[in-house]
């Protein structure tokens, strides 16, 4: 066992024992118990807001709801075990229902929707005093029969389990998927992630943490009041996650412990509590976006490096063969576009465009700005629907397939690389593999992704976070991601823009590799020399109309192409 592991274990045991040690004024077992329960709920919020980036401003309602549910059933004389189960699972079901509906809301509407939910639950608990106890709340007599020490034990066990579950969830493929969705939903869909499903799942899991924590908290405190569901509590929770360090495993624990201890030592000064809290929140948002956890983590890394010595060299990656999409035959026609028209209101962005691209062919789409090239790509990759016309890929109709389902058939790069900056190059490529080949395990995915990067001469960048890389290399990584898993069709959106001479030569090499493997490659490109050097055939669009179609040498010589493309220059 590594020495740093042993130290971490010792620190954890000391932390658990600390409330009984009288080390710190105000840090007592009752406070620590409450902190454990709140942290459990905040782990869920950290998942939704810290990792998933969704502004969930109504989490307190998901803590109070199961407590109210269980309490009301208890008062009706329903057996205790059933009360608990109904409270928790009812809340989780409601969260799933809300998530399905709410995830489509863009950022701030999602925030206000969840905030509104908090208001509704608080309002309802006040509006029906006969059932909910009104302003004085609902009492839970059962919890008082349990000793404080036992409660602390329950709280610690619950929290340790919660942290273990959280740590188990937030890693590997799920972590990459979440980060991609959080950073760029469109790119996430294009690499094959069902964005709405992932967001709904994260929201529901997060709310499950809140539900379990909420019911434990209510039985521990012995009462649940309308304020427990209210938006003030919800927004305080967001603040605690921010102060603790959003997205960090220990962020919720540190934030909760710090803020709650602070309000205890300031003497529960009702008057100053809000100000202290507001100041901490504001300072964290403005100046310490990594929070306490981020700051401690840096310290810990130094300490661990000093304890353990330099990290052992990673074992050589095991070689996995790329599992090509064997089901599709790699000869004949790949993409067949027939009479595709796209209207934006009165504007014809594409007008009756038809062409065929074969396997093992590089096909160019050329035209001035506004010609409809990007619209064509968006229709092929499923981001937009054609107003009329058909698309067939290897004989299969694309129309019924949503964006994320097309990922195994179509790889796509973007004009400006849409990678997740805080993931490494390797992880960014793996995200696509997670989706299109679920049979691979983690090591195999890493091996395939690394092989692809090495094949494209980018192997030395694999472990680097994308944010540290220059734009040209990001474009090549984006392209690698589009090509990984050997999709039958690869769409490259202006791959040559912004590349240096060397990178350009490299790009040509990579594209020839793709062709050699039998993929059909379509590029949108303004660099005519590059297009002429690499593509056999192409199409020229202008204002949505096809003005030339055929061999690249012929279409580029066409006088109408000169006129449309060079305009005043011709």
């Amino acid at each position: 066992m590594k020495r740093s592991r042993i130290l971490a274990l010792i620190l954890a045991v000391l932390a658990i024992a600390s409330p009984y040690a009288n080390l710190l004024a105000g840090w007592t077992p009752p406070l620590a118990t409450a902190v454990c329960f709140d942290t459990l709920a905040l782990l869920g919020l950290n998942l939704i807001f810290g990792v998933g980036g969704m502004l969930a401003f109504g989490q307190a309602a998901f803590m109070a709801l199961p407590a109210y549910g269980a309490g009301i059933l208890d008062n009706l004389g329903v057996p205790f075990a059933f009360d608990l189960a109904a409270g928790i699972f009812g809340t989780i079901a409601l969260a799933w229902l809300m998530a399905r509906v709410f995830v489509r809301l863009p950022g701030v509407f999602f925030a206000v929707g969840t905030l509104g939910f908090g208001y509704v639950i608080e309002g309802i608990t006040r509006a029906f005093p006969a059932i909910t106890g009104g302003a004085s709340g609902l009492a839970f007599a059962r919890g008082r029969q349990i000793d404080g020490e036992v409660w602390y034990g329950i709280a610690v066990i619950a929290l340790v389990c919660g942290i273990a579950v959280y740590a188990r969830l937030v890693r590997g493929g799920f972590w990459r998927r979440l980060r991609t969705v959080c950073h760029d939903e469109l790119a996430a869909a294009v690499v094959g992630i069902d964005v709405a499903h992932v967001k709904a799942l994260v929201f529901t899991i997060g709310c499950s943490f809140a539900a379990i924590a909420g019911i434990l908290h209510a039985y521990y405190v012995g009462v649940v009041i309308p304020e427990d569901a209210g938006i003030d509590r919800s927004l305080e929770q967001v603040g605690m996650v921010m102060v603790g360090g959003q997205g960090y495993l220990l962020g919720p624990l540190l934030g909760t412990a710090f803020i709650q201890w602070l309000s205890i030592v300031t003497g529960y000064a009702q008057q100053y509590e809000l100000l202290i809290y507001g100041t901490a929140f504001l300072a964290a948002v403005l100046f310490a976006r990594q929070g306490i956890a981020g700051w401690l983590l840096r310290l810990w890394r130094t300490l661990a490096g000093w304890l353990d010595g330099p990290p052992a060299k990673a074992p050589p990656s095991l070689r996995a063969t790329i599992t090509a999409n064997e089901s599709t035959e790699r000869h004949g026609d790949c993409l067949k576009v027939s009479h595709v028209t796209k209207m934006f209101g009165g504007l014809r962005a594409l007008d009756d465009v038809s062409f065929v691209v074969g396997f093992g062919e590089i096909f160019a789409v050329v035209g001035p700005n506004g010609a409809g090239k990007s619209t064509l790509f968006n229709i092929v990759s499923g981001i937009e629907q054609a107003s009329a016309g058909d698309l067939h890929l290897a004989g299969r109709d694309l129309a019924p397939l949503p964006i994320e389902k097309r990922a195994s058939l179509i790889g796509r790069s973007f004009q400006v690389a849409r990678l997740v900056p805080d993931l490494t190059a390797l992880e960014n490529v793996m995200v696509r593999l997670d989706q299109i080949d679920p049979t691979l395990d983690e090591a195999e995915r890493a091996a395939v992704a690394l092989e692809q990067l090495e094949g494209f001469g980018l192997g030395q960048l694999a472990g680097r976070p994308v944010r540290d890389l220059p734009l040209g290399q990001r474009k090549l990584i984006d392209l690698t991601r589009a090509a990984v898993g050997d999709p039958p069709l690869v769409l490259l959106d202006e791959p040559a823009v912004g590349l240096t001479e060397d990178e350009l030569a490299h790009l040509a090499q990579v594209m020839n590799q793709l062709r050699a493997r039998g993929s059909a490659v379509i590029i949108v490109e303004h660099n005519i020399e590059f297009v002429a050097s690499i593509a056999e055939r192409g199409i020229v669009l202008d204002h949505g109309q096809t003005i030339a179609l055929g061999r690249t040498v012929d279409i580029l010589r066409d006088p109408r192409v000169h006129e449309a493309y060079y305009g005043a220059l011709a």
Partner: protein
Amino acid sequence: MNPLSQAILSGLMMGSVYALLATGLVVVFHTSQIVNIAHGEGYAIGGIVTAVVAGRDLPLWVALGAGIVAAAAFSLMLERFLLRPRREWPINSLILITLAVAFFVRGALNVAVGTDPMSFPRLFVGPPIRIAGGVLPLQGLGLIAIGLSAAFAIPIFLAGTRLGRQLRATAENPDAAELMGVNVDFARGLSFAIAGACSALGALLLVPLVSVDFQTGLGMTMRGFIAAALAGMSPFLAIGCGLFLGLAEALVTTYWGALAKDPVVFLTLIAIALWQSRHIRFGGSLRA
């Protein structure tokens, strides 16, 4: 007394304030893409500063002026010192800043003036007006008249003046506006100041009737946002939606009781949010 007429009259009063709040939020949203969660704090600051100054035996107009200036200055400072230096941050982080500011202001007001509701004398004193069995205080009539005029003045200012068009250009495309010689920073600052003054104006007219305390702000932000969201962030529509929200609240309170107000209002909000987003497949922009 006719409960329906009474509900409509008080609904119009509250609605005028919501319309003012909503237009302020919309103006800020358009120039900066930020939904300012600290917007309602301008209302709280305006109302409380006025109450404090009026309590010092100074003339009422001095107190009212102080209230408006304080709220406009607060809003301007929020933009200038907290948001402007962080313009490159993601929008969600900027929204979190405004949320933190809302909490901070609440805490500061709590320490400064305590938890008691505060108020100050009415600007319009006189016998109340009776309309169709409902009673409207003279202050209420002034509130509706001044509030709605101010709310209407904003879209007219945006559409009809050079400065207003610069604000709109900033909203449409800040980079292009900057190239065309619009001072984007000035436009943003101005929009925040206008928004702050608007919410304070609402407070100056309404507080003599319903009082204000340190935690009024967030509720006001929420009301303003509901109206603005209902209007699809359009300044003209926001006025109508503010009035509608006020009327709906008053009618629910009259017929179902005050406790039903929040649940009904926020269920409406959720319904609106869903309606607004019916064509959106996911949160982000869909153009590649």
